[in-house]
């Protein structure tokens, strides 16, 4: 509670109109966002991610440099702009993080549960996943998003994502649709994209992972969705779950054609 008039319990003369104050709020928030753009701490995560990518680790003492992110073993440049996608070796549609798990298991010899442990940073503990994803995303900066929706499993993932986008449940009756089906809406002061509108989807899907100033770390799309379900009063979404990947493919369909600007800087 930050409003002094409430604390004091005093009677306040209301503003004659709330509109000018609101215009100024929008303008100043915009200025705040712009001032932060001159230095994005995600740069630090990209650098650390690249180091982890090249480091020999795990029971097989191997690096991730031969990991196939969809464009062939070892190709990082441009890979992020085409994820999620279908991978024949796992017979699954995978995003950056689930693919990293696969590579940590096959190339480095980690157990799946080890590779998936603590994917999200908490105060005092970094996340390798957040750093690696920052590095991989940054290697597609400026490239056109072209997530394939051709393979039957990719088409299926899109259709599942579409169903789940509209699925309402829980004590607040929330679904993705509750916040992301209209243009020009906000939650508090945060703009909400209409995810089925290409222009809006392009600005959003292409800017994750992002350094979140409210959380003091880079967060990935996996975390964004986990956070959405948290806010929707749903239980903990499993890391690299099929739900998360299906929703990503759904979003990517509308975001395709946009330019990758990740990792970005957000509230």
């Amino acid at each position, binding site marked *: 509670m930050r409003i002094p008039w409430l604390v004091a319990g005093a009677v306040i003369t209301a503003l004659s109109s709330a509109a000018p104050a609101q215009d100024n709020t929008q303008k100043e928030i915009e200025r705040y966002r712009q001032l932060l753009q*001159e*230095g*994005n*701490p995600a*740069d*630090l995560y990209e*650098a*650390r991610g690249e180091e982890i990518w090249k480091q020999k680790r795990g029971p097989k003492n191997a690096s991730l440099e031969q990991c196939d992110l969809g464009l062939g073993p070892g190709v990082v440049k441009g890979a992020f702009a085409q994820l999620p996608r279908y991978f024949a070796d796992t017979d699954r549609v995978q995003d950056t993080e689930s693919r990293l798990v696969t590579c940590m298991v096959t190339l480095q010899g980690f157990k799946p549960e080890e590779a998936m442990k603590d994917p999200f940073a*908490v*105060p*005092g503990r970094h996340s390798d996943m957040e750093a690696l994803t920052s590095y991989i995303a940054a290697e597609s900066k400026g490239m056109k998003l072209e997530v394939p929706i051709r393979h039957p499993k990719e088409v299926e993932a899109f259709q599942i994502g579409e169903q789940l986008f509209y699925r309402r449940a829980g004590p607040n009756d929330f679904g993705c649709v509750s916040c992301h089906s209209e243009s020009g809406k906000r939650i508090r002061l945060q703009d909400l994209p209409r995810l089925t509108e290409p222009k809006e989807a392009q600005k959003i899907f292409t800017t994750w992972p992002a*350094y979140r*100033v409210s959380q*003091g770390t880079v967060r990935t799309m996996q975390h964004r969705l986990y956070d959405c379900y948290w806010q929707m009063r749903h239980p903990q979404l499993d890391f690299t779950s099929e739900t998360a990947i299906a929703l990503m493919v759904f979003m990517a369909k509308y975001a395709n054609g946009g330019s990758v600007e990740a990792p970005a800087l957000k509230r």
Partner: protein
Amino acid sequence: MADPMRIRANMTGDKVEVKALMAHEMETGQRKDAKGNVIPAHFIQNVTVTHNGKTVLSAQWGPSISKNPFLHFRFKGGKAGEKVTITWTDNKGEKRTDEATIAGG
């Protein structure tokens, strides 16, 4: 050991424009972890920027500088190709030094 800094030094006119990001928790000592234990204070206290052996900026910081600190300033007397060196020291005595080459304008 702490992660490297990201330092950008560019000539703008006759001045060197320095922008730096440092990887540091900047823990205030007032937050609690998930178990309710206080997370001890851990923050950068001193920052020194040198160029050709001369200090061009020195700073003392408290725990209310934001996590992963950002610093931006300008100085005269540098040329493209020369080095700018930044060193920070935190309250636990940890230290990190990185340098960047000044890029042309």
